[in-house]
């Protein structure tokens, strides 16, 4: 119950005995979990378990970017992962998850979209990143975005013939090097306290949250604020400090 959680937070401790700025353990990142896909990864934070799969297709480039490929991020909150998820068309939660992960990658300069060009003006690669939580026990944002970066690092381009036909059964050795490694960390506010990596039980009582993507050099590359409460500037800058420090921890796992 919320009062109880707040009482514990005032003592600097969470329901499971963790400190406020501590990730659950075990925290694992596995690349290539599903080798049939062009890229894949699986991230587990405590009981939260998220699979990310990447498929590559070719497309005609957008007229204003004839020499660049593109990415698309999708997320599905399947009923398998939680009694709270329902079957049916994508919920706003799943759309927000996909777009927040997308935001952390697209404008960060991590990907050189020109490297996705096959024939300028005619054919480019389209990378689709699909996020599928397998067990949802809180903090899907961090698990999903970490998984997306890991899956991108795992990508191997499939063989493509001169006519542009893709042979999905055979992969080349060519990968997708990332120029930068953005890491998203979400800072959550319950009452007056700020914490990271809530479990599903804790997440129910979150008043506000701020997802922050940071790069190796400490610059911020994306924001997403959620929740019903407002945040002060001071709170936001404190959250950024947390995100940079925790981002460094997560980046080491890649």
């Amino acid at each position: 119950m919320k009062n109880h959680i707040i009482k514990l937070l005032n003592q600097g401790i969470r329901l499971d005995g963790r400190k406020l700025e501590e990730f659950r353990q075990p925290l694992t990142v596995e690349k290539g979990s599903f080798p049939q896909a062009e890229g894949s990864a699986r991230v587990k934070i405590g009981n939260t378990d998220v699979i990310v799969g990447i498929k590559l297709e070719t497309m005609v480039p957008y007229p204003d970017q004839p020499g660049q490929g593109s990415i698309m991020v999708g997320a599905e909150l399947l009923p398998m992962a939680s009694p709270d998820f329902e079957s049916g068309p994508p919920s706003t939660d799943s759309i927000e998850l996909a777009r927040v992960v997308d935001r952390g990658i697209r404008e960060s300069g991590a990907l050189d979209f020109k490297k996705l060009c096959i024939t300028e003006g005619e054919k480019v690669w389209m990378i689709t990143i699909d996020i599928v939580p397998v067990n949802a026990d809180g903090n899907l944002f961090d698990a999903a975005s970490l998984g997306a970066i890991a899956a991108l690092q795992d990508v191997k381009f499939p063989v493509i013939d001169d006519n542009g036909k893709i042979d999905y059964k055979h992969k080349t050795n060519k990968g997708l090097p990332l120029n930068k490694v953005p890491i998203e960390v979400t800072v959550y506010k319950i009452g007056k306290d700020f914490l990271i990596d809530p479990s599903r039980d804790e997440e129910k009582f979150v008043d506000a949250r701020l997802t922050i993507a940071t790069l190796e050099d400490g610059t911020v590359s994306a924001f997403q604020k959620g929740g019903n409460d407002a945040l002060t500037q001071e709170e936001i800058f404190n959250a950024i400090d947390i995100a940079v420090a925790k981002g460094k921890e997560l980046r080491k796992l890649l």
Partner: protein
Amino acid sequence: MTQGILVKPKEVVVPGEILASGLDNLPGYGTYRNGENIHAGMLGLTSVEGRTIKLIPLAGKYIPKQGDVILAKVFDVTFSGWRAEINSAYSAMLSLKEGTTDFVERGADLTKYYTFEDYIVARITNVTSQNLVDLTMRGPGLRKLHEGRIISITSCKVPRVIGKKGSMVSMIKKATDCQITVGQNGWIWLAGKDASKEAIAEKTIKLIESKAHTSGLTEKVKNFLEKETGIKLEVEESE
């Protein structure tokens, strides 16, 4: 084929497994006879009583039983009472009469007694053939819960958490200085003054849940609690 009971007691068996052969034995709870053989009809732990072989369930949602004291979570307030979730396939009804001894005027605001998301300790007074469940708050120990946390375990593991004559739960209470109320439906209320001790109590209960089917459980739990809390414990009864 060999006759008689083919499995040891306290063995984990899966649906379809042959438990006994021949016509000498009787199929008890969770088992069924098909011709010469008695088969397991669920995932369970074998138990032999005389000529009857039955299974103790190892999993499954709580099946409401009259007389059970359970924890319930209010999710709806109506004109005539409250509806609550009870960790089962069905929800339960707490009527005005059973909810309070106060005289309540027609149209009064019932949320001042119990409101959404409140947890209560209640007793099941009736379960109909269509699995409609009635609750009462009238009785010793039945009350609204404040503070504390609720944890959920599989309801068939509850007897192991309680222990013989309450010995297991008493040991946890003593070691962690927590109040614990165990509902027959697998929901458990836990409240302590020290947050880290509360976390230990929760870990202990989860440990019991995962090892409920093993022997020497009291010893395992005692060792776990001593290691986590540094307190020496005495075991009153071994199981």
